[in-house]
């Protein structure tokens, strides 16, 4: 029953490109660079349009219209904003720790970009489809935290330090829960490879096949994911009512923009991982578009629809809920999510062992 992932368009492209160009290793490297450029462009556009989407969605939640002046329906608004930020002077304190201050945003952005590379956007379309993909994402996203931490510390600002410390605290705590939620699904799938996990869901999404434990894991994953992407019920690291702007208080211009973009890309990654693990990735619901040809295109479409819905859910949270306090944040994690997650993973193990999952 299990279909193994045999085609990867990217590896095919690399092989084809290096053969045609015939420079041996050089051709391969050129192919990698081309793929990286495609991903960078995607990264920038996705970041910018997620910002646009956020502003638009927030506006409709708040009885407003949102940006609608620059370009049709305001679609050029965030691009204009990015151009403005590009042209701004990078202005910070002179007592900053220069090395840490400038390393911070690269760490954040690079971590986000690396995570993006393992996500399968469609059947066989993942730049770096390794067999430990889930683990890789968890590992790399922890590096991003380091960026926030040293950014807050390096900018020599008390609000920044508080924000950085809060982000460290929050991320380390919530990584545990999201890790457990991911493991629950890995128990079912028996694989850490993202494309493999998706292929296994052709018989039914894991949210459906794992019934109760998968549902609990999904809820935990969404909560922990919201916390990891620093969004509102958990936006303590930058909670503007308390800390001004938290860890990016002292950043301006592009420095700020990198943090801002990385935050939105992280939201995209969290949603993409959630979709991949629980909602069947690029698979069409009930296989309704399977016979229509062009499977990779339909894969794209379904993947982005699902990710969009997940992102919308996160935005809905953001524009509805108040912020938690720092001790409540830890209470929620250590007293609620973590024990429930642990019990849940045992429950899942038992169910899998006795073949009680669908």
């Amino acid at each position, binding site marked *: 029953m299990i279909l193994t992932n045999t085609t990867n368009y990217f590896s095919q492209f690399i092989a084809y490109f290096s053969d045609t160009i015939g420079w041996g290793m050089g051709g391969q490297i050129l192919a990698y660079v081309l793929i990286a450029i495609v991903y960078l462009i995607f990264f920038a556009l996705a970041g910018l349009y997620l910002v646009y989407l956020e502003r638009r969605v*927030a506006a409709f*939640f*708040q*009885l*407003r219209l949102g940006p609608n002046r620059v370009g049709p329906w305001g679609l050029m608004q965030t691009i204009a904003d990015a151009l403005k930020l590009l042209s701004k002077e990078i202005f910070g304190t002179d007592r900053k720790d220069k090395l840490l201050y400038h390393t911070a945003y690269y760490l954040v952005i690079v971590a986000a970009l690396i995570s993006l590379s393992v996500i399968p956007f469609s059947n066989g379309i993942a730049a770096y489809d390794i067999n430990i993909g889930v683990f890789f994402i968890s590992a790399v996203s922890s590096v991003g935290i380091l960026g926030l931490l040293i950014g807050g510390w390096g900018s020599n600002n*008390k*609000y920044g330090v*508080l924000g950085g410390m809060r982000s460290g605290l929050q991320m380390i705590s919530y990584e545990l829960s999201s890790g457990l939620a991911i493991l629950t699904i890995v128990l079912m799938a028996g694989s850490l490879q993202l494309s493999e996990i998706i292929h296994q869901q052709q018989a039914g999404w894991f949210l459906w096949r794992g019934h109760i434990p998968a549902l609990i894991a999904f809820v935990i994953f969404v909560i922990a994911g919201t916390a990891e992407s620093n969004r*509102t*019920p958990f*936006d*303590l690291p930058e*909670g*503007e*009512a*308390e*800390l*001004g702007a938290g860890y990016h208080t002292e950043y301006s211009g592009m420095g700020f923009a990198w943090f801002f973009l990385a935050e939105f890309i992280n939201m995209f990654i969290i949603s993409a991982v959630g979709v991949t693990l629980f909602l069947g990735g690029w698979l069409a619901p009930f296989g309704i578009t399977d016979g229509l040809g062009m499977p990779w295109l339909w894969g794209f479409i379904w993947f982005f629809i699902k990710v969009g819905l997940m992102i919308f859910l996160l935005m809905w949270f953001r*524009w*509805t*809920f*108040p*912020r*938690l*306090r*720092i*001790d*409540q944040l830890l209470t929620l994690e250590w007293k609620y999510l973590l024990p429930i997650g642990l019990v849940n993973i045992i429950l899942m193990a038992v169910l899998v062992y006795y073949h009680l999952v669908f």
Partner: protein
Amino acid sequence: MEQVIYNSADLKSQEYFINMGPQHPAAHGVLRLILTMDGEMVKNIEPDLGYIHRSIEKQCEHEGYKQIIHLTDRLDYLSSHMNNEAVALAIEQAMQIEVPERVKVIRTIMGELTRIASHLLWWGVMGMDVGALTTFMYAFRDREMINDIMEETCGARLTMSYSTPGGVMFDLHPNFVNRVKEFIPHLRSVIPKYDELLTGNIIFQKRMKNVGFLSAQDAISLGASGPVARGSGVSCDRRIIEPYSALSKVDFKEILYQEGDNLARYNVRMKEMYESLHIIEQLIDNIPDDGIQAKTKALIKLPKGEFLQRVETARGDFGVYIVSDGKKNPYRVKFRSPGFSNLNTLMEIGKNQLLGDLIAISATMDFVIPDIDR
């Protein structure tokens, strides 16, 4: 080499200072709080005032009595009508003018509308301070209706300068009664939605309950008034203790909560909006028709003496104290602003709280900085 043995008592964390304000997203204005922090814990709060001091009390000494009123708009701009009314009442009390019944009723209705508008704005900002940004726009949608009513009658949306000694500036607009009658059921229908959105929310409840406890004793000794004191169970509503304008003719309750925490102060304001609606409902149907201005001289001179008038603004007990030496401008004017005294309680109850709690507490205090600083 000497061996160094650390024990936990030696490893003291260092206390540090944070300037919260004068420019801070959560400070409702230019209030600067010098916080002594131990990690996330606020150890001491020292407010630093004076960033928006305009010496309004001194300016009043150089203005005629009619002209003082427009300055009081700029104290607590969210309850500007009540401030105007307080000065007008003080002058009327000194000159022993009997104002027409219509004026009394209009002033009371306007005052309660202003109170609702102020509480609505507070609710929106309260939500923002604890992180729920959407409440702001919902509250502003409903507050806008009051602002439109005000604009139609008074010609201004916020700083109305509507009361004058002996009367009011304009007569009511013909649409006024209808629009107020439309507004009352609207607000009654939206406040339950507010409750569902924010009050019932588990996160909000956890942020508010048992946080920022102010005992009744402290509230009295620190001079707290208004919803802050009533949240601690101190009965202090000037509208009940000495009813002014048309308030003696209406029936309403004083909202008292005994808990003294953030949630109690929050609930007092939410319930007060219903009471204000109740007051307006009783008055709006039969506004007497006996003129909008009592006969006063063109140049008002108060007799020699000292005059005090206290009213209940949206933030608490607002007092106007005028010392007159018989000239056309006062010898000394003192405003007792509720926000200043309520700031004292923040210094007391904000200690040993987390930074996030301090924000929530100061949000339930409902500060308007120009009112504190004058």
